[in-house]
């Protein structure tokens, strides 16, 4: 039987129309046509604007009749349109009265905030036609991908090893050897690399549609175009970045991303998206009107009483996240990515903003964060907060978590960096090794709350962390004023590149020390793309604007720095081989399984006697294998001795139960290949009672 709603009731020129359905928002395929639905609290009227793909001028402008408006929603079904080849947008009429928060302008054609595909920047780096009246164009997606039996993997958070990466940087360099450099497809060609390295989750820096030409300008130094390379500036929250897709020119980026996710899942890799809900690409009152500003400025943005934009993001505007309407669009967006793209988790950029009210005050019980934490569709997704913002709200350890939210642990980064360069911060480092119970345990939040990282896209790479005391951001064209100054880095004796073999040997050791500490810490380790092969950004700690070798991963480093790669790979393998490093619950500092050893015990140059004094730079700990995963699985005993002093020290080793012997897994004081053994191949330690740790060295033993 035929439904009667497949029949048009209205006409506009040749277009056949009928009142649409308000839900879902956006453009959806319905029998015989397309249902358009868009809302505005303050608009007086709305017009649907249709373009043939890439056309300069619209093919039609269809005003929404009054009877097509339900509440504040304009909704209409348009029949018999070639939905594969049209682009659509809206004109909204309403008051232009910035003092009252309204900035309607019916001369502007607006992007649908729910657009699933966005045209206009189809191929990365192709200079836009700045005279185009509609720069970022909504398109209609099929959303009918054949997932077969795929679903998100549900890897327990504590078992994750995350690899933070940039889509374009990963394979753009000619040395990548992929067929489609710099794209989602390129990542798919490199899946075997992740598997070899041993990570089980990739975290993609923003892939929502953004405009690489936003604030683009020639470099004052090289003349090369500086662009919005990282993409922390969203144009549309529902659409993948077309320019990251080999098929962007065909408008098939949706399928390309899904095919990538499906293939990653098949290979045991989860996908986490870095999402930017704190601001949009529209900037402040001087910025372009792309979508939100023209649709409902007062709803979408945090505005000062005078109608200007609050700037808690440091990027010109702040999304009004705890407004009920904006909350819903964020929820709709994440639900869409979780269900339609099978995304495993989300990392929220400057997430502290998501806990502020319309005037910017921090809320004690932020509705948005609570909603996301309890949402049934997002129930199995990892939710990770960058728990601070550019407005000074720092919530590491206090982010409203509802038992769900993990945090980028900025304190882990700072403490480990300090300890690594020789600051006597043994106590702080010891907290880090345990999954930061000082921050989380009293709230009942487990070790996996802590995303442990020493380096991330913001800041120095690992190679630069041990090669530079200060940032060198001149290439960004901001007089070296951008980027953080609190790097806690140490150049090991010379600033930047050197041919001094002693310094280079120390740097090489320091990188291994950092990786070793990261991989034996409870919590979730996150590795920055390229750190496994010593990728340098020449001391630039804020490479947001460079589409060049400063950001691109040079795959030749795999050969040049093969021994470092081997070390990182085996360190990850070591972590993956030992559940005692991946506990779900915090240590209890007691023996609750009857092994004769507490779950964790502390040592130093003397066994059973850790030096917690303010000048101490040595620490050791032993993990009892019988307490692995709260005693639910059996593992080896593990002993980690860390000497961050500039002198060598003899460490007395705690004794093992009878029949067990210590074997050497890691000694960063040795040169490759004696710096690390593949798990299972460790050699028995000759002297079971003690070992000499060279200056700034780490030894890891396995008791088996």
């Amino acid at each position, binding site marked *: 039987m035929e439904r009667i709603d497949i029949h048009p009731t209205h006409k506009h020129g040749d277009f056949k129309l009928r009142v649409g359905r308000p839900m879902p928002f956006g453009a959806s395929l319905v029998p015989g046509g397309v249902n358009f639905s868009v809302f505005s609290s303050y608009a007086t009227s709305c017009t649907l604007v249709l373009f043939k793909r890439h056309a300069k001028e619209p093919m039609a402008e269809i005003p929404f009749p009054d009877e097509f408006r339900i509440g504040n929603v304009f909704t209409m079904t348009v029949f018999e349109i070639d939905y*594969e*080849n049209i682009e659509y947008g809206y004109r909204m009429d309403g008051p232009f009265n910035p003092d009252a928060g309204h900035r309607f302008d019916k001369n502007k054609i607006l992007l649908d905030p729910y657009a699933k595909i966005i045209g206009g920047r189809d191929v990365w780096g192709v200079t836009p036609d700045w005279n185009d009246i509609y720069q970022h164009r909504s398109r209609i997606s*099929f959303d009918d991908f054949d997932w077969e039996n795929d679903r998100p993997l549900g890897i327990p958070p504590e078992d994750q090893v995350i690899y933070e990466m940039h889509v374009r940087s990963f394979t753009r360099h000619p040395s990548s050897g992929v067929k489609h450099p710099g794209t989602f497809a390129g990542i798919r060609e490199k899946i075997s690399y992740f598997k070899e390295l041993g990570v089980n989750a990739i975290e993609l820096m923003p892939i929502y549609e953004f405009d690489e030409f936003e604030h683009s300008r020639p470099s004052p130094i090289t003349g090369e175009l500086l662009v919005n390379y990282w993409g922390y500036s969203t144009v549309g929250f529902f659409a993948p970045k077309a320019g990251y897709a080999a*098929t962007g020119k065909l408008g098939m980026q949706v*399928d390309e991303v899904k095919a990538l996710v499906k293939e990653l899942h098949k290979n045991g890799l989860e996908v986490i998206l870095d999402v930017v809900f704190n601001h949009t690409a529209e900037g402040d009152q001087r910025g372009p009107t792309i979508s939100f500003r023209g649709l409902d400025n007062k709803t979408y943005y945090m505005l000062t009483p005078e109608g200007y934009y609050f700037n808690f993001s440091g990027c010109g505007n702040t999304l009004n996240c705890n407004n009920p309407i904006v909350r819903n669009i964020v929820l709709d967006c994440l639900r869409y990515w979780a269900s339609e793209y099978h995304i495993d988790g989300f990392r929220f950029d400057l997430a502290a903003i998501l806990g502020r009210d319309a005037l910017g005050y921090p809320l004690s019980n932020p509705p948005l964060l609570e909603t996301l934490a309890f949402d049934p569709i997002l129930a199995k997704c990892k939710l990770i907060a960058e728990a601070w913002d550019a407005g000074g709200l720092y919530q590491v350890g206090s982010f409203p978590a509802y038992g769900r939210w993990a945090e980028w642990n900025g304190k882990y980064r700072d403490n480990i960096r300090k300890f690594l360069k020789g600051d006597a911060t043994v106590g702080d480092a010891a907290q880090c090794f345990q999954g930061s119970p000082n921050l989380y345990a009293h709230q009942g939040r487990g070790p996996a709350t802590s995303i442990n990282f020493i380096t991330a896209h913001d800041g120095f790479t690992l190679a630069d962390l041990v090669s530079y005391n200060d940032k060198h951001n001149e290439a960004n064209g901001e007089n070296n004023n951008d980027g953080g100054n609190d790097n806690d880095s140490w150049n090991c004796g010379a600033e930047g590149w050197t041919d001094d073999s002693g310094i280079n040997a120390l740097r090489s050791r320091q990188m291994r020390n950092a990786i070793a500490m990261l991989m034996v810490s409870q919590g979730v380790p996150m590795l920055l793309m390229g750190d496994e092969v010593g990728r340098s950004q020449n001391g630039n700690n804020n490479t947001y604007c460079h589409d060049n070798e400063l950001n691109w991963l040079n795959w030749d480093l795999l050969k040049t720095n093969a021994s470092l790669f081997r070390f990182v790979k085996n360190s990850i393998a070591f972590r993956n081989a030992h559940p005692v490093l991946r506990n779900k619950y915090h240590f209890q500092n007691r023996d609750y399984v009857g092994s004769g050893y507490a779950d964790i015990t502390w040592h130093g140059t003397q066994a059973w006697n850790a030096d917690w004094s303010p000048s101490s730079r040595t620490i050791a700990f032993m993990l009892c294998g019988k307490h692995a995963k709260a005693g639910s699985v059996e593992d080896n005993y593990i002993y980690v001795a860390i000497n961050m002093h500039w002198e060598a020290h003899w460490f007395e080793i705690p004794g093992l139960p009878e029949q067990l012997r210590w074997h050497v897994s890691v000694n960063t004081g040795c040169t490759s290949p004696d710096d690390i053994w593949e798990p299972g191949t460790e050699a028995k330690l000759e002297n079971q009672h003690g070992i000499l740790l060279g200056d700034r060295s780490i030894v890891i033993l396995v008791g088996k």
Partner: protein
Amino acid sequence: MDIAISKTAEITVVKLEGDIDASSALGVQEKVLTLVEQGSKILLDLTLVPYMSSAGLRMLLSLYRHVSAKEGKLVLVGVAEEIKDTMEVTGFLSFFTTCDTLDSGIVALNSA
């Protein structure tokens, strides 16, 4: 869009000529679906198809699902390099057996 159909003993060969996009995909699908029976072996000759849009690739996958539901087989022959690449990148290719020539396509359909 031209569609030529020829039948041998067990195999139906559908030769398509022209671009397949939203405007032509439905016509192709309707035509081919009339040929799908229980256990059908269908060879789609795409040698003269220079371009397939997203809608065209969806039509192919939909045909595959129809044919599979009736325990039949579908083989694609002569897929242009660029189309094949797009299919690979977007995940469509993994569903299909593709062959370079008509003869090898027939061999593939006749194999178990």
